């Protein structure tokens, strides 16, 4: 569906307003039901036994004692989840991650599970399961794991993407490359070159709601799953495949979801809960503890990135190159590949080359985390860009404006850009009052840019008009942060009725056609497109019914502002019929009125943001304080501006935590040392200032209202923006994230030492 230019000139009546969300009251009164808030009669408590070892062969599992404990109704191991993946390597990895088959591959890897009458019995039963392990050497560091001498995690892996197939297996599963031009020649034309290596540590999405589900397997072979997920249709496919069911026999209902950020796009415990329920013949509720969430779900990649950028004296970048190594956990992934695609996406470059390496480590399977892979690449690139601007003697904003990609630029990852927002966000930052505000002692200001692709995907939506003229909108994209409000606004806009007349819900997998999950910032983008199309289909029927009621030709009926209007002089005295008036008569004019839409929402417009950040660094302790933060981002068209701001602020806050505090810390024994919110510290209210936002609207040509996804890009610039601010405050270039006080202090002391 293309952008309809009539809308750019048009004054929106609903879109762009800020009403209260339809699911709001339930959420402020405690009535909303999240993953763990649902119960069934006769339900058992499920629990999972996890490997305490980073890498070990499972020699034997003896479950007999646990089975004999009174109150235990089922005990399962990998044998109860047989391999039905039929050569699908990615699904085999999902299966193995849900329940280890021959080896435990990380601290926290599931090896067995129980269902018992209560939590206490289930916990006791876990203690009675005897697992004999044969310990294997492990590796948790991305650079160590990439070496030839590293312990092998999977000896069937031979690096893909090399010119010749390697003779020996390794932990590097894939090499990928992007770019164009000739970087060697480009660097030859450079007057200044910056070359640096960077590292970022592994972080977790940190959603406050742990994974939770209730599985109910019936003896007729059908099953129900209640679960907190970003994509219940995808969970259905995956669970059905792993359990050997037809997808239609498994009905998945998505609960309210307490945060996901990518972490709830993968199945973890759900197939286990279903297998337990199948074996026990009773419903099973399985809720992860916070410890399990950290040890066995989520995290993003740890990375090691080398960047080289060259520019002429006039500030034109002549060549840019990056090598990116991303950890994937113990299973193959494409995380470095995405990093390599995004690294230089903000810039117009004649010569650019990026190479990504996917690296296996004995850590949990890497999962998507908000614009996955982009923040780390942006940290490395935007730090080097800042340094290069300094070397040339140019203002960092002007330097970026000079090199910013534009409409028609061939992006570093291949496609040619349409209308994009990188230039406008930079111009907005340049004239933003934040850039001119005075700074005090030990304070510094930094800025950085970020890019994310956005995704469209398969979408199916139903719009039903009740006989009272109210509209129910059933969507299949899970609402992670207010999309029911946005989609109701879109339906109201298109139909020309009041927002209050529309009620949006997220339908279960048996009530609606397939929908991709809420990822890639696609929720509002794709479902609004499907909602517009469904509404237009409904309007067609509304016009037909009005024509019937008036007994005139349907071509003489137009739809305006929520009313059917008879067009042409001969119908001069027919007046108009409201949506409600037509709906009331629908029983007599042909039955219910509805609009459906099934589409692939192509053309999610790429998204850019530029952030500004002021930091104070205590030179004695290395402690930092974020003083002021501003986000400028292109939304295409902000459907519900308050929730757009919320996405900008939330992403920035997560980026701030990543930049300054958050990291997975592994001991020499390969065990995670901080699997809790006390030691894995995410930003709290007193750590942050207000986060200012500025929404730009550069219409996406592929959406009828110009909408772009807004959910992810905001986490891309903060790492670099903060590193650049620290550099300006303390005179040190930070190359290792998080910039915790000891790391900053060490960097300051190294400079002091050096300048003595």
């Amino acid at each position, binding site marked *: 569906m293309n952008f309809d230019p009539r809308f750019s000139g048009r004054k929106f009546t609903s879109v762009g307003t800020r009403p209260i969300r339809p699911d709001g009251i339930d959420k402020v009164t405690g009535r909303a039901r999240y993953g763990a808030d649902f119960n069934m009669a006769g339900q058992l408590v499920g629990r999972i036994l996890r490997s305490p070892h980073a890498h070990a062969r499972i020699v034997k599992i003896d479950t007999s004692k646990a089975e004999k404990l009174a109150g235990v109704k089922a005990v399962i191991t990998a044998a109860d989840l047989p391999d039905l993946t039929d050569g699908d390597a990615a699904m085999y990895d999902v299966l193995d991650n849900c329940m280890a088959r021959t080896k435990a591959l990380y601290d926290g890897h599931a090896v067995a599970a129980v269902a018992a009458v209560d939590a206490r019995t289930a916990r006791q039963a876990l203690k009675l399961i005897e697992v004999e392990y044969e310990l294997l050497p492990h590796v948790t560091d991305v650079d160590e794991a990439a070496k030839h001498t590293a312990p092998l995690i999977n000896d069937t892996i031979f690096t893909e993407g090399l010119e010749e197939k390697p003779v020996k297996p390794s932990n590097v599963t894939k090499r990928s490359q992007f770019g164009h031009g000739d970087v060697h020649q480009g660097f030859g034309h450079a007057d200044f070159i910056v070359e640096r290596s960077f590292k970022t540590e592994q972080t977790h999405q940190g959603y406050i709601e742990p994974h939770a589900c209730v599985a109910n397997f019936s003896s007729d072979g059908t099953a129900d799953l209640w679960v907190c997920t970003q994509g219940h249709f995808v969970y259905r496919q995956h669970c059905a495949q792993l359990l050997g069911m037809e997808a239609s026999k498994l009905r998945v209902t998505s609960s309210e979801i*307490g*945060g996901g950020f990518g972490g709830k796009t993968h199945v973890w415990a759900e197939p286990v809960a279903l297998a337990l329920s199948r074996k026990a013949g009773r419903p099973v509720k399985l809720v992860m503890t916070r410890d399990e969430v950290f040890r066995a779900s989520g995290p993003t990649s740890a990375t090691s990135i080398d960047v080289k950028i060259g520019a002429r004296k006039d500030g034109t970048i002549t060549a840019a190159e990056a090598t990116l190594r991303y950890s994937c956990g113990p299973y193959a992934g494409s995380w470095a590949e995405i990093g390599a695609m995004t690294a230089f996406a903000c810039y117009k470059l004649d010569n650019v080359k990026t190479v990504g390496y996917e690296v296996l480590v004995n850590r949990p399977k890497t999962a998507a985390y908000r614009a996955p892979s982009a923040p780390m690449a942006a940290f490395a690139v935007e730090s080097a860009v800042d340094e290069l601007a300094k070397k040339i003697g140019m203002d960092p904003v002007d330097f970026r404006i000079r090199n910013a990609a534009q409409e028609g630029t061939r992006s570093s990852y291949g496609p040619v850009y349409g209308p994009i927002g990188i230039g406008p966000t930079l111009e907005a930052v340049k004239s933003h009052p934040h850039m001119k505000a005075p700074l005090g002692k030990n304070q510094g200001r930094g800025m950085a840019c970020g890019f994310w692709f956005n995704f469209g995907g398969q979408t199916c939506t139903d719009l039903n008009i009740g006989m009272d003229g109210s509209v129910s909108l059933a969507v299949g994209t899970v609402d992670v942060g207010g999309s029911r409000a946005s989609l109701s606004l879109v339906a109201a806009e298109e139909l020309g009725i009041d927002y209050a007349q529309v009620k949006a819900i997220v339908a279960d997998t048996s009530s609606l056609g397939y929908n991709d999950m809420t990822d890639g910032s696609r929720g509002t983008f794709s479902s609004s497109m499907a909602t517009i199309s469904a509404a237009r289909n409904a309007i067609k029927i509304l016009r037909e019914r009005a024509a019937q009621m008036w007994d005139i030709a349907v071509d003489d009926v137009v739809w305006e502002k929520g009313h059917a209007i008879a067009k042409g002089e001969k119908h001069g005295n027919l007046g108009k019929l409201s949506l409600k008036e037509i709906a009331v008569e629908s029983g007599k004019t042909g039955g219910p009125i509805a609009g459906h839409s099934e589409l692939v929402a192509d053309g999610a417009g790429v998204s850019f943001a530029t952030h500004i950040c002021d930091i104070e660094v205590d030179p004695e302790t290395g402690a930092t304080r974020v003083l002021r933060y501003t986000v400028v981002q292109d939304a295409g068209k902000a459907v519900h501006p308050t929730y757009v*701001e919320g996405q900008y602020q939330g992403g*920035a806050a997560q980026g701030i935590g990543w930049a300054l505090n958050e990291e997975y810390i592994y001991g020499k024994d390969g065990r995670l040392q901080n699997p809790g919110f006390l030691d894995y510290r995410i930003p709290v209210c007193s750590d942050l200032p207000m986060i200012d936002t500025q929404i730009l609207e550069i219409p996406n040509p592929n959406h009828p209202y110009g909408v772009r996804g807004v959910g992810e890009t905001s986490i891309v610039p903060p790492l670099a923006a903060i590193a650049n601010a620290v550099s300006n405050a303390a005179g040190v270039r930070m190359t290792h994230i998080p910039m915790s006080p000891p790391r900053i202090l060490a960097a300051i002391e190294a400079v002091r030492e050096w300048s003595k």
Partner: protein
Amino acid sequence: MAGVAVSTTINGDTVEFLCQADETLLDVLRDRLGLTGAKEGCGTGDCGACSVILDDRLVCSCLVLGAETEGRRVETIEGMAHGDRLHPLQQKFLEHAALQCGICTPGFLIAAKDLLAKNPDPTEEEIRFGLAGNLCRCTGYDKIVRAVQDAAIVMKGA
């Protein structure tokens, strides 16, 4: 294991329940009494999602035993609105979109209510430190702080 019989007051109503000696108040509320408004984000006192007020004191209900509530008063999110009249904090959270996923919201509302009861006119910094025991991963806290500021103004006027 024998259960402990407990008689307590929850949101103004007398409530009697049996629980195991090592069962937390959070588990009692959620699993025995069907009050699932308090959430378990960590179970270790680090996230505040389980916040309730126990005899005028803000506590993490995951760190209190069910049996400890004998003869005491518990206030949960379910008791915050009066019928269909929302508490000003609830109303302001909605108006400011101070929630995205909303899993932290019950905890924040309870903590904010306790904060305003003790300090009806807090500065931004006092709000930020007063709510530092509650984690929110979605909002960056900006709209939460503004909602509390706005509610404080309304409540002073009331």
